[in-house]
């Protein structure tokens, strides 16, 4: 089950609806510093539940929602849709948050709890995010992290 697309609106540096198509194989994301590459990774982590993000890039709604620039005002909502698919199956996950902090999850269009999304992923052999996402700066720190960190990853595989 691979990632077909990620759609972002109001999320970090993506104020307007942006669709990013992915294919099987190897996709590289390139560009100058500060242009939003890691923000795409943040969007994937956030749509899948947002907690336990190792990066210090902020989990509060004001860090998640587009907060404007010196010419444009902030927005009031951030919304990310992740579409996964394989030959037989399709899974569309959505996470939305408002400035108030109110947040909603949807799976295949219906309002759900985060737990149901996590179960649906688990049933499709998609592990916890730490297993398949290595955030910027983390690869150098992993080796000297506590042994329990490595255990957790092994438990994901087991």
């Amino acid at each position, binding site marked *: 089950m*691979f990632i077909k697309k990620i759609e972002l609106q109001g999320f970090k540096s993506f104020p307007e609806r942006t669709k990013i*198509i992915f294919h099987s194989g190897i996709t590289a*994301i*390139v560009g100058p510093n*500060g242009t939003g*590459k890691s923000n795409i990774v943040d969007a994937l982590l956030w749509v899948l539940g947002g907690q336990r993000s190792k990066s210090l890039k902020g989990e509060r709604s004001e860090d998640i929602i587009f907060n404007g620039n010196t010419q444009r005002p902030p927005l009031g909502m951030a919304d990310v849709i992740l579409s996964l698919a394989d030959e037989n199956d399709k899974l569309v996950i959505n996470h939305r948050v408002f400035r108030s902090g109110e947040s909603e999850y949807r799976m295949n269009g219906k309002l759900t709890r985060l737990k149901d999304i996590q179960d649906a992923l688990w049933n499709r052999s998609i592990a916890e995010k730490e297993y398949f996402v290595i955030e910027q700066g983390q690869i150098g720190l992993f080796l000297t992290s506590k042994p329990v960190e490595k255990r957790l*990853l092994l438990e*994901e*595989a087991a």
Partner: protein
Amino acid sequence: SKSQFLKALTEVNQHFQDVFSILFNGGSAELNLSDESHPLESGVEIKAQPPGKKVQTLSLLSGGEKSLTSLAFFFALFRYKPTPFCVLDEVDAALDEVNLARFLDLMKKIKDQTQFIIITHNTKTMEVADYIHGTTMAEPNITSLYSIQLEQKEKKAS
């Protein structure tokens, strides 16, 4: 369960030794329980010995050696339990040319079973990609994406 975890540990350990020798072109590595007498709670420790060097504290490994050893660990997990997709943010930053080439080879070998999304500034990494997305910020704080065509592969990026 305990037996499931120990089975995973044994098999991932074997894969870790294999992948480490591939990435380092030699040497040896293993995974151990920090506390053999409490397998259900014990952390997992990594031992790594680049070719010809001695087994010593992980902290004495160089920056690039630490990155490569961590990558070996993740690839070993994937050999035991493949992940459908894997997102890597600048994991190649500390690798020299030779180590980078071996890492890229390994990623290419498993890209049929695992979709890779890799953020990078490195042109060698871009060269193994099947598709490339580029980010820019024409307007501050607003990401625009564009696709980069890979002519030599005769494939149009999305």
